[in-house]
C-alpha cells in the first residue's frame, strides 16, 4: 500500500543514500561546488553553448549559414560552418547513417531547399520542440534545481526539460514526448542524463524533432546519454552519446563546451514562435523553384 | 401558498383537509417517526407513490396510455388541490400551446413525445409520482433513488445555499430542512425540458417547487408540492399525492437501464411522415 507521504519520504531518502555513495570522486579533482539541501551540486544559473558550437544546432556536421543567411540573422558574414568539430565519434565528424537512412536524409535535404508542402519545412522552422540534444544548442539555458530534480528552461519556443535525479523509473514507453523522458543522476560533479521515449512519426518523420536541421531523423529506439561535466564554476564539458540501432551503424558522440552567461540579472523572455510564424511564403518559393526545375540539395559546403 | 384574497385562505385549507380526512385511517395524534443517527426523522425505505402518471388534472384518462378503458368514476378528480378546479392555471398563451398534445397524446409525433418516454430525467415533482422509489438518509442529506431511469435526487439538509441561478438542471437544485417531522424542500434551478405528466403539462426554467413530505404513519407519507412559475402560470398551484411503504419489493432497488435499451422504442415513434 503506497501512500503519497510514504512515497515522497522514500524518494528523498534514496537521494541522500545516492549522494553519500559517490563523495570520493568529487573531492579527487576540479571544482568543489556548494551543495543544495538535497546534496546536489548547485549548478543554478544561465548557461549557453560556446561560440564553437554556435551553428551546430543547424547541422552537427557542417554548422550552418552562407553570407546571405548570416546577413538575414544580423551575424558576421564570415560566421559560416563549424568552428570546431562537434561530432567527436566517429572521428570523421559525419553522422554514421545506415544506407537506407542516407537516402531518407537526402530526401529531407532536397525538400528543405524547395519546400512545397508543410511537411517539408523542418521542425525548428515550424516552432516545434527540439528534443535532446538539440534543445541545448539553441540559445540560453537557465538551470533551476529543487530537491530531487534539475529543471532546464529555454527561451526558444519556451521549451523546458524536467530531469528527476531521485532515481524514479522512466515513464512507460507508451507516453512518448518530443523532449524525450529524462532521468538524471550525479556522478561527482557530472550530471549523467539518460533520455528515451522520444516521440516518433513513422510516416513523414516531420511530426517529431530532428536532431539537426539537415534532416537528421531518428526512430522510436533513439536513446541519448548526456554527460554535463561541471569542470569549474563557469564551464561545462558537455558530451552526448546518440544511439538508434534502426538508423545509425554505431552510437555516435558529440562534445562541446557550455559556459555560464556572465550578464548580470539576465532574464529569459517570452519567445512566441508559433504565434508569429508564417510559412506560406516559403512554400510559395518552394513551388516556384520546383516548377522551374531548380531543385538542389540544401548544403553549405557544396558550391 | 399565497392566495390573492386572504378571505379565501381558510376555505382552501378546509377543502384540502376534507380531501385528506376521508383518506386518513390513523388516529388523530400526529405520527412521530424514529430518528436517524444524525437526528433526522427517519423515513427511510422503499415507497410506491399513489398518484398518477398519465394526466394529473383529470384522473379519468389514466388508462389510455396503456390502451385500457377510461374510468368515468374518476372523471373530474385531479391531483391538484389548489386551485380548487383541479386545473393547472396556465396563462392564455401556454394553454394554447398545450392544445395539440390532446389530439395526439395517444399517438404522439417525436416532437410531442413525453420526455420521460425518451428516458430523460422526469423532473420534480414527477419523479416522486412515477414508480417505486427509495428514501435514504445518510448524515446531512435526504437522497431519493428512483427505480425508473436509475435517477436520483440529493437533498442536503445542512442549510447550504443554492447553486448559481443560471445553472439549470433536470432535477433542479434541492435544499431541505426539517420542520418538526415534515421535510420542507425548496427546489430551484429547474430546466424547462420536463413535464408533470404525459399531457405536456410544461413549465419554464423559472419554475420553483416547494415540497412538504409529512410521515403520517409508519407506512404512509403525505406529499404536497406548491409549484410557482410566473412565466407560465397565472398563480401558484398545489399538487398532492401520498406514498405507501412498499411491503413486497424487498430491501434493494435494482438497476433499471433505460437509454441503453430505448433505441427500439424511439424507432417505433418514427413512422413514415411522423419523424
Amino acid at each position: 500500500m503506497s501512500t503519497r507521504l510514504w512515497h515522497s519520504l522514500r524518494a528523498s531518502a534514496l537521494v541522500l543514500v545516492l549522494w553519500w555513495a559517490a563523495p570520493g570522486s568529487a573531492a579527487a579533482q576540479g571544482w568543489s561546488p556548494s551543495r543544495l539541501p538535497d546534496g546536489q551540486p548547485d549548478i543554478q544559473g544561465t548557461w549557453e553553448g560556446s561560440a564553437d558550437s554556435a551553428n551546430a544546432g543547424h547541422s552537427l556536421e557542417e554548422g550552418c549559414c552562407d553570407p546571405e543567411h548570416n546577413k538575414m540573422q544580423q551575424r558576421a558574414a564570415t560566421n559560416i560552418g563549424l568552428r570546431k568539430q562537434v561530432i567527436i565519434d566517429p572521428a570523421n565528424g559525419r553522422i554514421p547513417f545506415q544506407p537506407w537512412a542516407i537516402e531518407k536524409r537526402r530526401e529531407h535535404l532536397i525538400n528543405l531547399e524547395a519546400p512545397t508542402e508543410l511537411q517539408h519545412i523542418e521542425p525548428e522552422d515550424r516552432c516545434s520542440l527540439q528534443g535532446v540534444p538539440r534543445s541545448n544548442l539553441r540559445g540560453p539555458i537557465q538551470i533551476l534545481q529543487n530537491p530531487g530534480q534539475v529543471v532546464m528552461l529555454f527561451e526558444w519556443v519556451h521549451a523546458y526539460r524536467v530531469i528527476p535525479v531521485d532515481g524514479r523509473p522512466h515513464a512507460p514507453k507508451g507516453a512518448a514526448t518530443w523532449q524525450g523522458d529524462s532521468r538524471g543522476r550525479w556522478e561527482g560533479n557530472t550530471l549523467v542524463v539518460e533520455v528515451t521515449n522520444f516521440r516518433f512519426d513513422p510516416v513523414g518523420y516531420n511530426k517529431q524533432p530532428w536532431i539537426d536541421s539537415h534532416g537528421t531523423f531518428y526512430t522510436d529506439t533513439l536513446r541519448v546519454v548526456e554527460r554535463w561535466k561541471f569542470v569549474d564554476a563557469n564551464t561545462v564539458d558537455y558530451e552526448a552519446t546518440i544511439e538508434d540501432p534502426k538508423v545509425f551503424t554505431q552510437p555516435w558522440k558529440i562534445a562541446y563546451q557550455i559556459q555560464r552567461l556572465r550578464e548580470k540579472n539576465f532574464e529569459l523572455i517570452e519567445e512566441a514562435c508559433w504565434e508569429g510564424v508564417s510559412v506560406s511564403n516559403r512554400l510559395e518559393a518552394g513551388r516556384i523553384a520546383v516548377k522551374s526545375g531548380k531543385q538542389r540539395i540544401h548544403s553549405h559546403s557544396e558550391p | 401558498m399565497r392566495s390573492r384574497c386572504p378571505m379565501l385562505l381558510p376555505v382552501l385549507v378546509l377543502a384540502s383537509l376534507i380531501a385528506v380526512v376521508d383518506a386518513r385511517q390513523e388516529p388523530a395524534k400526529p405520527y412521530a417517526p424514529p430518528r436517524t443517527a444524525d437526528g433526522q426523522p427517519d423515513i427511510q425505505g422503499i415507497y410506491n407513490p399513489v398518484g398518477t402518471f398519465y394526466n394529473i388534472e383529470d384522473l379519468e384518462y389514466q388508462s389510455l396510455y396503456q390502451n385500457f378503458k377510461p374510468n368515468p368514476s374518476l372523471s373530474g378528480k385531479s391531483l391538484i388541490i389548489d386551485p380548487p378546479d383541479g386545473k393547472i392555471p396556465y396563462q392564455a398563451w401556454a394553454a394554447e400551446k398545450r392544445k395539440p398534445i390532446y389530439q395526439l397524446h395517444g399517438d404522439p409525433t417525436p416532437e410531442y413525445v413525453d420526455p420521460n418516454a425518451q428516458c430523460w430525467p422526469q423532473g420534480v415533482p414527477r419523479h416522486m409520482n412515477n414508480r417505486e422509489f427509495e428514501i435514504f438518509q445518510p448524515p446531512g442529506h435526504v437522497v431519493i433513488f428512483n427505480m425508473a431511469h436509475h435517477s436520483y435526487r440529493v437533498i442536503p439538509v445542512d442549510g447550504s445555499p443554492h447553486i448559481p441561478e443560471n445553472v439549470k438542471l433536470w432535477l433542479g437544485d434541492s435544499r431541505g430542512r426539517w420542520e418538526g417531522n415534515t421535510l420542507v424542500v425548496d427546489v430551484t434551478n429547474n430546466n424547462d425540458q420536463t413535464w408533470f405528466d404525459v399531457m405536456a403539462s410544461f413549465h419554464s426554467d423559472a419554475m420553483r417547487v416547494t415540497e412538504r413530505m409529512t410521515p403520517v404513519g409508519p407506512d404512509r407519507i403525505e406529499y404536497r408540492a406548491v409549484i410557482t412559475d410566473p412565466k407560465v402560470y397565472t398563480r401558484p398551484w398545489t399538487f398532492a399525492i401520498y406514498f405507501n411503504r412498499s411491503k413486497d419489493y424487498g430491501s434493494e432497488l435494482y438497476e433499471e437501464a433505460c437509454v441503453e435499451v430505448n433505441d427500439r422504442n424511439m424507432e417505433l415513434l418514427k413512422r413514415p411522415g411522423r419523424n
Partner: protein
Amino acid sequence: MLKTAVAWIIGAVFLTAAPDAAAQNMPRTPDGKPDMSGIWTAVNSAAWNILPHAAEDGVPAGLGVVDGNEIPYRPEAAAKQRANFANRATLDPETKCWLPGVPRATYMGFPFQIVQTPTQVSILYEYGHALRNIFMNSPHPKGPIEFWMGDSRAKWDGDTLVVDVVHFNDQTWFDRAGNHHSEQLHVVERYTPIDRDHINYEVTIEDPKVFTRPWKMSMPLYRRVDRNMQLLEYECSSFDEAFRTRGAER
C-alpha cells in the same frame, strides 16, 4: 450556520479553515516560505466558461469561479463577448494553439509544475509547454511591451505569493466562452497554500478599457499525488489540424 452544518455533517469536510491554521503542515523552503514546488491541477470546468454554466455536449456543467458570478463588461465589450461566443469555434485563440495567457493557463485542465527558488518561481505548463518565469522582488520592465503570458513580478505577503502581471497583448481569452480583455490587462494572482496538497488561487483582474471595475475569480489548486507523476506534453501546434491551417495562412 457553519456550526449547525458541522453538527449535521459528521462526514463531509468544508475547507473554509483559516489558511494560517492549516498551513503549518505545509513543507517550507530553507528561507522559511511555504514550498509550493510540485505538480498542480485546477479541477473545474472554468476552461469552458469561467461563469456558471449548464452542461452541453462535451461541456461539463460548472458552478463558475467568478466572485459574484458576473463580469462587469463595458457595454461594447459585452457585445464583443457575445460575438466571440457565437464564433468561438474559429475565434478562440486556443483553437490556433496560441499561448493561453494568464490566468487561463492555470485552469485549462492540464497539470502545471511550480519550480520555486528564492529569487525566481517558474511555472511550467503541460499545455503547449507554456512557461512563466516569475521574478521575485524586482520591478516590471518599462512598457509598452506585449507578451502572450505577460511579465510576472512577485513578492511574499506572509504565506501568500502575490504575483503582479502586466504587459499582455489583447489576443488571449479567459476561457472558451469568449471572455476577453485588452492589452491594458493587469492581473494580480494570490497563491495561498491551504495545506500541503491544496492552494487557494485567487486572481484580481483589472482592464479599464474593457471592464467598469476590477473583478475576481478564485479556485483551489490540487497537488497531484498520482504515483510517479510527471508533466508530459500537449504539443498542439504539431497536430495535423493546426499544421495544415498554418501552411495555408497568407
